[in-house]
């Protein structure tokens, strides 16, 4: 698939890895930012790309605090897991390759 063949950046892999660690659970943008150490200016363009490529899904979750707006949450998809696995395998192969 065209989406799979595109090489993922390290930051993108970090985001997918953070989502994968949640094992099917939803994460908010702030939680992903904390897990990956990414700033909002780097995180959201990555989230948008992953969403457009079907590697994650998103939904709005009502805030637990009344009066606060609903928050956007993210979860990795099957395609996202496959892309992450492929990216990690490639990275391992590259590290193991002779110089």
């Amino acid at each position, binding site marked *: 698939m065209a989406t799979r063949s595109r090489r993922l950046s390290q930051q993108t892999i970090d985001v997918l890895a953070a989502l994968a660690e949640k094992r099917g659970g939803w994460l908010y943008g702030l939680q992903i930012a904390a897990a990956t150490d990414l700033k909002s*200016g*780097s*995180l*959201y363009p990555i*989230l948008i790309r992953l969403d457009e490529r079907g590697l994650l899904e998103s939904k709005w979750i009502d*805030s637990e605090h009344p009066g606060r707006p609903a928050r956007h949450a993210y979860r990795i998809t099957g395609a996202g897991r496959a892309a992450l696995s492929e990216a990690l395998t490639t990275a391992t192969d590259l590290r193991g390759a002779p110089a």
Partner: protein
Amino acid sequence: MTIADWMMKLTRVAAPENRTEWTHAMSAEFDALDANANRTAWAAGCVSTVFAWRLQASALYLIALIAIPVLWNVAISTLIFMAATSYAFAQPISQEEMGELWMSISFAGTHITMFVFAAALSAYRPRYALFSAIVLWIATTGATFIIMFGPEFARLVSSAPFSTENNHPALPNVVMALIFLGGDVWAVAMGGFAGWAFARGKRYTWTAMAAINAALAIGFAHFFFDPDETISVLSPISNIAFTTIAAAFLLAILWSLYTTTRDLNRAWRAAS
């Protein structure tokens, strides 16, 4: 309002329509931040993201807006100069007439080219038609015009005698200033209007603009190369046209400034 709050508001105002959901997502996370978290850093990232989206969406337009004046200043004006020179000096006419013919071809070529560029840019981005026209004008002939005629232009308007009866500047002096401005800006102003009309499907308007542009270019050429001395008939026509175009151009700038300020003010209030 803190700097972080102000930047988040700017983020919501500047966000392009196709990214509204993601802008809300960033904004909701900002609202969820702890009081002791680095709210300014989060807001700064959101602002930079939104402006990057804006730049991406207008990348081709901005490249064209920069490339056209560069291309014009580096190559096209030279080509017009060379074409006018080789044509005029190949004619069996006196040396004085050659100079006049060269000048007429140069001016007509310049204004027809500028009309086409302004029309193309405005047809591509009709919302920025006036902006495109202003940038094209200033980056090509406008900068020279402002340096050469700006002080004189200001002097003509400011020193125009006031009528004691009607308390307004004397008409001829103001018109003179408008003729000066119209004589330089007409091609991009009409090109911008024609491109906007083309994009909006107003075919009679853009056809009329193209026809008037061609007529003015020929008239302009005739102004310099006038062996039959018909200039006394043509010049009032071109002066009326230049005055009208310059006045319309200035009014369009004022109207655009007013509507842009009003819309930004509304968007800023709505983003609260």
